[in-house]
């Protein structure tokens, strides 16, 4: 299923335009705009950044500066689902390394990479607030806690069934 270049352009324009319409052009709405575009497009490309800047009357450098500050405003293409494994102390003590190794093994990728079918991107993150139920990870917005290698493998299988 291939889109034409024009169709892709229109989609991108409409995502940026729609977000700016929804929140307004004032500077204070920059974060919600970036968040919306990121969610719609899966990541923020250079041209998205320029378009947001143009729509809001800001410089591209400024918008890029803001976007690059935040961990969850991805500036690189990501898979359909993003896995964030917590690596901070309590999860680390409960074996987050094993969870990461299990995931690398299951998905046949390393940290920071995306599966060849575009289904998953595997990343690490700092404390996600589930220290009493570690190891923990987020897949997209959903937290998964008290992980074991078996549990992780079941979770990933469920995603492939969807």
């Amino acid at each position: 299923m291939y889109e034409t270049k024009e169709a892709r352009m229109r989609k991108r324009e409409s995502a940026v335009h729609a977000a700016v319409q929804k929140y307004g052009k004032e500077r204070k709405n920059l974060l919600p705009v970036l968040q919306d575009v990121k969610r719609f497009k899966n990541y923020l490309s250079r041209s998205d950044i320029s378009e947001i800047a143009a729509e809001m009357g800001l410089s591209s450098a400024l918008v890029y500066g803001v976007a690059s500050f935040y961990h969850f405003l991805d500036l690189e293409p990501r898979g359909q689902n993003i896995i964030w494994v917590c690596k901070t102390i309590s999860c680390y003590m409960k074996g987050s390394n094993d969870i990461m190794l299990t995931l690398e093994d299951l998905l046949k990728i390393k940290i920071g990479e995306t599966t060849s079918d575009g289904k998953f991107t595997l990343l690490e993150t700092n404390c996600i607030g589930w220290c009493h139920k570690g190891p923990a990870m987020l897949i997209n917005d959903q937290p998964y806690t008290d992980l074991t290698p078996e549990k992780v493998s079941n979770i990933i299988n469920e995603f492939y069934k969807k």
Partner: protein
Amino acid sequence: MAKQKLKRVDLIFSKDCSCKDILAKALKRPKEEIVKDLINSGLKGRGGAGFPTGLKWKMAMEEKGSKKYVICNADEGEPGTFKDREILDQVGLKVLGGMALASYVTDAREGFIYLRHEYRFLIPKLEMMLEKFHIWMEEFDIDFHVELFMGSGAYVCGEETSLIESMEGKRGEPRNKPPYPTNQGYLGKPTVVNNVETLVYTLMIMHIGSDKFKSMGFEGSTGSKLFSISGDTPKPGIYELELGMTLHQFVSEFGDNDAKAVQVGGASGFCVPRKRFKETHIGYQGGLKGFSLPTGGSMMIFNSSRSMYNVLHNYLEFFEEESCGQCTPCRVGCQQLLKGIEAVKRGEKSQKYLDDLLRLAETMKLTAKCGLGQSVGNSFSSIVENFREEMIY
């Protein structure tokens, strides 16, 4: 070890009171009385910094100008802290009740909950609560509207001025203080920024009375607090306890009989070794003999199987990534501390180099712009000084 049970408190999650009734009653009282009550209660901010809440509200109340804001800081990011998530999940309406109280006292018409990205899964629940809350506001004939504002992943945004910068569409870089947010906050207007837990306590103090709240804890550290307990413990979780307990009491109840250290206050807090458990209290400095350590609630227990080098290494990696990079002491300091302990461990630097690193940590405490950079030295110095051999061998 003696199993002396620490008394449990049940205010935050207690469901045998109606948030709406407490609010209705409180909103009939004069503002000044509410502030006086809060000051009398001795309540200090439960996010970790410990600023007296009553005083904060008073400062915002006394500001002139028609536009003011109330912000609930739900950017809980300190490693080992997870209580705010649970509060929002279980008793979110109480948080909104506290915000309504703050808006009544300060005359703010708009409020925000700044929710960290990692808690996005709470959005549907919070939106339902907001709907209910706005109906109450209409019933009370109060003009106060609260919106959710989502963070995008930055630990430093838990610092109130970075949080405000972030809400203004900027990089979350802390501001110089003063001016304080109560004077010039969001969009330059007077703004009250309170932690999730603090807001619930303001409401509960209206319910039980400030004297009853003050009867818990000790002078300077009154009341109770939620503790997020993790690490080497048979019962990790969230517990509401009175301030003032010793670490010895704490470990007797929550440790696994093998605790060698407790990290009080997360990565930015202090690491206390076993030999100091008996003389270390949980609370603000001043009211009791011995050491008192404040905490935003994070309590991590390490047993003797843990390498404190690995613990410190994990913290430093965390800080190196989360430093906003704005001021040099923090940006470069975090990198150098991390490189430094790695070099000592590999034997490339002599153990005396640890003393240079301790001086660097001290310099960061004095010169970094915000709480993040200033507090890296807390965990660094307390771990290196107490577990020096583990850093070397």
